[in-house]
C-alpha cells in the first residue's frame, strides 16, 4: 500500500471502504477514490496494453485525458480508471490484452513487428494475397481496438433522460476562474449554471493546495444562486446549444452567454520510452498525491519546461518522494529552482530527459542537454543515468479550447507560450482562466470575475460599479497575460534511444511514423492525421496534436502557424452512443377512431405519419362487400383545410389549374395542385360551403405540405383569405356501396335521394345526432358518402354507421381494399402513380388544366408549354391475362429490351377476376388495345393498354 497520511484536500473518506474487483481479483479502496487511485494504491502499475504494440501503459495524466487507463466497468468498455469513481461491487476489467495484462501475447508485435507495422500497415503488409484480407481483418480487429462490446447486455440497457434547460449564463469548468465567473454573474442577477467534470468544483486549485480558496468560492457561488452540475461533461457547442452529459442524463443547455473556463492540458515530452509505466505528467502525480493520498513513487526524475514541474517536484518531496534529479529545459530555471536546490537536489538547467528504460515499470532515466533536433536512429544520447521508479514530465500546457473553437473562436500559434492560443472570440462567448492564458491563482480568479461580469453586462444586468470593476479587471487581465511565465519550448523529440518515442499514446504513433508519413507525401497535418491516425484516438489530440505539429514543422522547415491544427469536432470527449441516442420520439398520428380498428383486430401499418388500418383480415372480402352491400373506411387522415375570406375563390383559382371561383355553394370539384414547373404536387376535392368558405381536402401524406404551400402563397400575395388546418379536428369516414343510401336513411333525416343529394354535392346535416359535412364523392367507385364530423364524435359516428349497416352486410374496409377499389376506377394516388416529374398531361388528365382561364395560376406557364408538346410517356391502365400480378415498380420494356416506363400500381381485382394496373408507357403505345411488355423479376408479361376505368367506365354506378 502506498497510501499517504491524510492530505489537506483529499477526496477520500477513509472510514468508508469500497470493495470491487479488477480482472476478478478483489481490490479495496475508499469512497472518493477513482478506480485508478485505488488500483495504484494497491500497487498496480500496468493499466492497459497499447493499441498497436500492446506495450504496458500506466497512469499518466490522472485527469481523464490520456488513453492509458481505459478499462471496462461492468462490461461496458471505455471508462477512464483515473476519473471513474469506485463503487461497491463494481466489476473492472482490462481491455486489449490476451490472455492478460501482465502477459500479453500480442506484445510480440512491439519487439518483432516494427518493420511490419509502419503507418498504413493494414494496407501495406496485409494486402497480399488479396483473398486473405477477410482473415487478416479479423485478426487485426482483435489485435487492435479498445475493447469489445458484448452482443447482448441486458444489465447495461439504460435510457438516457434528455433534459432541456435554459439559463442566462452557462459556465463550463469549475476551477478558480469558472467559480469566480459564475459567482460574479449570479451576484448581478443572472441565472447561472456551472458545469464541472469533477466530483466537486475546484479544479487545479484543490491539487495545488488552494482547496480553501476553492471551497470558499464554491460556497460563494452557491450562495449567489449558481446551480452546479458536477460530474458533468460539456460535449460540444452546436449553434449555442451545449449538450452536457451527467451520468444517465443528457442536459441540452441553451444559454444566452457562455463562459468557458476549461483550463489547460499538460503536455508530455517526446523521448525514448516515454510511455513506460511510471512516466507521469507532473499534474498526474500531484493529483494522485493530493486528491487520493497515494504516493506515486519512491524516487523520481523530473523534467520540466516551466516552474510547474519544479513546484511539483517540491510537492512530491514533501510527501516523501526522493528526487534523483531535476532537469529544467530552460537555460535559466525559474525561482522555484532555488527551493529545489535547498532540498539538496541537483537542478540541471538546459537539460531534459532523453530516455527512460525499464521492464514492467520505469527503472532508470537518462538526462542530457537539450538539443534542437536529433536525427532518426542517431547515436543514443550521452548523458547521466539515474535510477528511479518515477519520471515526472511537464512539457508545457495547451489551452483546452475545443469548445471555444467549436463556438467560433480562432487560435493562432503563440511563439512566446509555445502553443496555439485563442485569438478571436465570437459573440456571447467568454474565455476565462488557463484556457485564456492566465496562470497564477490571482489572475485566474481575476479573469473569471471579468468574464462573469462581462456575461452579465451583455445580458443588460449590472450597475455603474460593476462596469467600473470590469474596466479595472480588464486592465489587470491585460497586464497579466502580456507577460506569461517563462517557459522553454521543448524540442519536437527530446531524445531517441533504443525504444520507441511516442508522439501519440492513443494510437501508438511514434515520431518515426510521422517522419515517414511526411516522406511518403502526407505532408499536411490533415493528411498526416488520416494516414498515421495521430490525434484520432480517445484523447482527441489533447496530448499529441501540438507535438505532431511541432514535429512536422521541424521536419519540413516551416512555422507551426503554417502547419496549422486539425479541426476540433464534437463530442469533445468520448461518449457512449446510448447517451446520445436518448429516448425515441416517434410521433404517430392516430385517427379519432383508431381504438375501434384495434378492437376489430385490424392489421395496422404506418401510412406516412399515421397509423392506419391496412385491412381487417380479408381484403378481398372487404372489396366485395363494398361492391355488393356497403363498406366503411376511416379516412380521417385526409388533409382538411378551410379557406375563407372574400378572396378565397380567386385565391384557389390562382393555386389550381381549373376554376373554382365559379363553384356553386354546396357543390364539389376535383382539383390537382401543380408547382410552377407544371408538376403534380397533390390532389383532392374542393367543396364550396358558402360564398366565402371552401373546404379543401388533400392527400393524407400531403396535408402538411399543402397547408404550408397555401399559406406561403397567401403570405406572398397578401389576399383577404384565412386558412385553418382542421385535419386533426375532424374525423372522416367513407360509407360506400349500393346499400349506402339505405344505411344513411337510418341515421339521418337528410333527404339522400339521388335527386336531392346528387353526385358531387356537399351537404351538412346531423348524422346519428352528430353535426356532419357529407360529401358525395366516389373515390372507390360505388355510391359513396364521405362524412366528416368533429373528432370527438368520430367513434360514435363509426359505431352508428356500422350498427345501421349491420342488416345490410356492411363491413369495415382498410387501406388495401381501398387501393384495389380506386385502381379499378383508375383514380391516381399522387406519389404512387405520379412522381416529381409528372404533369397533368402525362398523367392523362389534360381536362383538369383550363388554359382558357384568363388569370395567371401557379404552373400556368409550364403547363402551356406541355399542352403543346406531346408527352413522351403517359399514364395508362393495363390488364394482364395470365393472372400474375407484376410487382409495383416493374419496368415496361420497348421491343429492344430497353426500359421505357414502369408499373406504378397493380392488383388482382376480385370483382373483375382480372389483374389490373397502371403504368407509364410511351405515348405511342398509350391507346386502348396496344400491348406493352412488362419485365418483372426475370419474367416478361404482355399487358394490354386500357385508358378508361376498369370498373363502371362511364360512372353510371357512381351517379346512381
Amino acid at each position, binding site marked *: 500500500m502506498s497510501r499517504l497520511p491524510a492530505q489537506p484536500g483529499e477526496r477520500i473518506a477513509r472510514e468508508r471502504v469500497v470493495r470491487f474487483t479488477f480482472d476478478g481479483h478483489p481490490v479495496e479502496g475508499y469512497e472518493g477514490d477513482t478506480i485508478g487511485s485505488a488500483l495504484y494504491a494497491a500497487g498496480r502499475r500496468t493499466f492497459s496494453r497499447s493499441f498497436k504494440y500492446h506495450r504496458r501503459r500506466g497512469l499518466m495524466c490522472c485527469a481523464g485525458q490520456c488513453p492509458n487507463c481505459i478499462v471496462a466497468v461492468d462490461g461496458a468498455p471505455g471508462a477512464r480508471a483515473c476519473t471513474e469513481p469506485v463503487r461497491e461491487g463494481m466489476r473492472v476489467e482490462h481491455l486489449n490484452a490476451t490472455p492478460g495484462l501482465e502477459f500479453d501475447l500480442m506484445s510480440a508485435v512491439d519487439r518483432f513487428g516494427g518493420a511490419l507495422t509502419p503507418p498504413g500497415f493494414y494496407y501495406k503488409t496485409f494486402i497480399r494475397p488479396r483473398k486473405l484480407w477477410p482473415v487478416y481483418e479479423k485478426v487485426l480487429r482483435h489485435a487492435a481496438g479498445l475493447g469489445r462490446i458484448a452482443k447482448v447486455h441486458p444489465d447495461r440497457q439504460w435510457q438516457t433522460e434528455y433534459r432541456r434547460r435554459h439559463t442566462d449564463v452557462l459556465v463550463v469548468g469549475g476551477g478558480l476562474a469558472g467559480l469566480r465567473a459564475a459567482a460574479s454573474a449570479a451576484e448581478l442577477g443572472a441565472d447561472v449554471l456551472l458545469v464541472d467534470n469533477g466530483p466537486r468544483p475546484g479544479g487545479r486549485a484543490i491539487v495545488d493546495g488552494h482547496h480553501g480558496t476553492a471551497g470558499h468560492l464554491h460556497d460563494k457561488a452557491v450562495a449567489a444562486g449558481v446551480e452546479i452540475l458536477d460530474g458533468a461533461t460539456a460535449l460540444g457547442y452546436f449553434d449555442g446549444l451545449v449538450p452536457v452529459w451527467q451520468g444517465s442524463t443528457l442536459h441540452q443547455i441553451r444559454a444566452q452567454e457562455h463562459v468557458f473556463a476549461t483550463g489547460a492540458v499538460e503536455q508530455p515530452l517526446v523521448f525514448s520510452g516515454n510511455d513506460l509505466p511510471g512516466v507521469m505528467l507532473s499534474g498526474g502525480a500531484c493529483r494522485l498525491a493530493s486528491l487520493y493520498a497515494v504516493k506515486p513513487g519512491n524516487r523520481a526524475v523530473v523534467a520540466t519546461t516551466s516552474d510547474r514541474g519544479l513546484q511539483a517536484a517540491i510537492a512530491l518531496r514533501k510527501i516523501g518522494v526522493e528526487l534523483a534529479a531535476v532537469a529544467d529545459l530552460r537555460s535559466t530555471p525559474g525561482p522555484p529552482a532555488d527551493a529545489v536546490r535547498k532540498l539538496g537536489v541537483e537542478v540541471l538547467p538546459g537539460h531534459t530527459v532523453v530516455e527512460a528504460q525499464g521492464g514492467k515499470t520505469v527503472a532508470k532515466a537518462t538526462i542530457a542537454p537539450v538539443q534542437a533536433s536529433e536525427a532518426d536512429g542517431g547515436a543514443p544520447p550521452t548523458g547521466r543515468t539515474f535510477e528511479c521508479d518515477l519520471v515526472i514530465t511537464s512539457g508545457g500546457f495547451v489551452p483546452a479550447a475545443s469548445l471555444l473553437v467549436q463556438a467560433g473562436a480562432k487560435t493562432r500559434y503563440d511563439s512566446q507560450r509555445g502553443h496555439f492560443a485563442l485569438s478571436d472570440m465570437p459573440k456571447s462567448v467568454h474565455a476565462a482562466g488557463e484556457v485564456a492564458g492566465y496562470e497564477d491563482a490571482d489572475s485566474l480568479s481575476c479573469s473569471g470575475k471579468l468574464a462573469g461580469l462581462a456575461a452579465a453586462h451583455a445580458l443588460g444586468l449590472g450597475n455603474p460599479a460593476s462596469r467600473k470593476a470590469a474596466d479595472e479587471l480588464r486592465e489587470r487581465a491585460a497586464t497579466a497575460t502580456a507577460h506569461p511565465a517563462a517557459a522553454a519550448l521543448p524540442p519536437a523529440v527530446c531524445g531517441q534511444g533504443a525504444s520507441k518515442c511516442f508522439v501519440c499514446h492513443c494510437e501508438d504513433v511514434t515520431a518515426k511514423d510521422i517522419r515517414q508519413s511526411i516522406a511518403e507525401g502526407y505532408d499536411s497535418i490533415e493528411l498526416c492525421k488520416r494516414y498515421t491516425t495521430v490525434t484520432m484516438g480517445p484523447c482527441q489530440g489533447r496530448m499529441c496534436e501540438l507535438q505532431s505539429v511541432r514535429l512536422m514543422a521541424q521536419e519540413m522547415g516551416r512555422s507551426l502557424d503554417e502547419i496549422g491544427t486539425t479541426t476540433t469536432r464534437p463530442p469533445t470527449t468520448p461518449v457512449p452512443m446510448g447517451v446520445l441516442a436518448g429516448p425515441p420520439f416517434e410521433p404517430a398520428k392516430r385517427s379519432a377512431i383508431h381504438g375501434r380498428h384495434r378492437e376489430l383486430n385490424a392489421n395496422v401499418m404506418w401510412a406516412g405519419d399515421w397509423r392506419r388500418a391496412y385491412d381487417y383480415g380479408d381484403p378481398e372480402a372487404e372489396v366485395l362487400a363494398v361492391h355488393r352491400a356497403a363498406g366503411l373506411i376511416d379516412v380521417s387522415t385526409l388533409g382538411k383545410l378551410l379557406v375563407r375570406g372574400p378572396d378565397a375563390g380567386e385565391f384557389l383559382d390562382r393555386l389550381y389549374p381549373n376554376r373554382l371561383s365559379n363553384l356553386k355553394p354546396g357543390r364539389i370539384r376535383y382539383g390537382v395542385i401543380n408547382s410552377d414547373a407544371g408538376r403534380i404536387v397533390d390532389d383532392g376535392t374542393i367543396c364550396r360551403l358558402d360564398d366565402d368558405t371552401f373546404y379543401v381536402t388533400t392527400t393524407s401524406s400531403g396535408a402538411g405540405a399543402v397547408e404550408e404551400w397555401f399559406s406561403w402563397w397567401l*403570405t406572398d400575395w397578401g389576399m383577404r383569405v384565412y386558412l385553418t388546418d382542421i385535419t386533426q379536428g375532424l374525423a372522416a369516414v367513407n360509407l360506400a356501396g349500393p346499400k349506402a343510401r339505405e344505411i344513411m336513411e337510418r341515421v339521418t333525416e337528410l333527404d339522400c335521394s339521388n335527386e336531392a343529394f346528387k353526385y358531387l354535392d356537399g351537404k351538412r346535416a346531423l348524422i346519428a345526432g352528430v353535426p356532419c359535412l357529407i360529401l358525395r364523392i366516389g373515390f372507390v367507385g360505388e355510391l359513396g358518402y364521405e362524412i366528416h364530423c368533429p373528432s370527438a364524435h368520430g367513434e360514435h359516428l363509426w359505431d352508428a354507421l356500422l350498427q345501421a349497416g349491420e342488416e345490410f352486410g356492411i363491413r369495415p374496409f382498410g387501406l388495401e381494399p381501398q387501393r384495389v377499389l380506386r385502381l379499378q376506377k383508375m383514380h391516381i394516388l399522387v406519389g404512387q402513380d405520379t412522381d416529381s416529374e409528372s404533369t397533368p398531361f402525362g398523367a392523362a388528365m389534360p381536362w383538369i388544366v383550363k388554359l382558357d382561364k384568363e388569370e395567371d395560376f401557379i404552373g400556368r*406557364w409550364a403547363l402551356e408549354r406541355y399542352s403543346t408538346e406531346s408527352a413522351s410517356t403517359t399514364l395508362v391502365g393495363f390488364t394482364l391475362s395470365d393472372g400474375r400480378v407484376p410487382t409495383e415498380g416493374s419496368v415496361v420494356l420497348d421491343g429492344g429490351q430497353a426500359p421505357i416506363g414502369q408499373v406504378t400500381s397493380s392488383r388482382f381485382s376480385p370483382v373483375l377476376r382480372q389483374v389490373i394496373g397502371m403504368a407509364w408507357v410511351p405515348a405511342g403505345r398509350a391507346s386502348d388495345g396496344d400491348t406493352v411488355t412488362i419485365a418483372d423479376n426475370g419474367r416478361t408479361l404482355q399487358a394490354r393498354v386500357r385508358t378508361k376505368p376498369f370498373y363502371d367506365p362511364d360512372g353510371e354506378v357512381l351517379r346512381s
Partner: protein
Amino acid sequence: MTDFGFGGEVVRRPRSRPSFRELNSYNYFRRNVAGVQREWWFHRSGCRAWFIAERDTTTNEVFFTARPAEVEGAGAGVDGAQKADGAS
C-alpha cells in the same frame, strides 16, 4: 430541428409571362450563395407563419427576420420546384 421549416432562398416569381429560359431559371436555378441571403422560413411548430430571414449561409447567423409586408423590396415569389418535392 422541427420548429422551423426552410423555404429556400427568396426568388422573384416573374410578373408576366416569362420566356422559356426565364421560366427554367426561375424554376430550377438558385444563387446558392456562400454568404448572406434572404430566405423563406416557416414557424412550423409554432405560430405557423411564413417569414423572411436574412441569414449568413456560412455561419448560420441570422441578421433579421420579418414578415414579407415589412420587407421593402423583398420581392415576391417562391421556390416552386423545391416545394413540389416536399409535397409529393
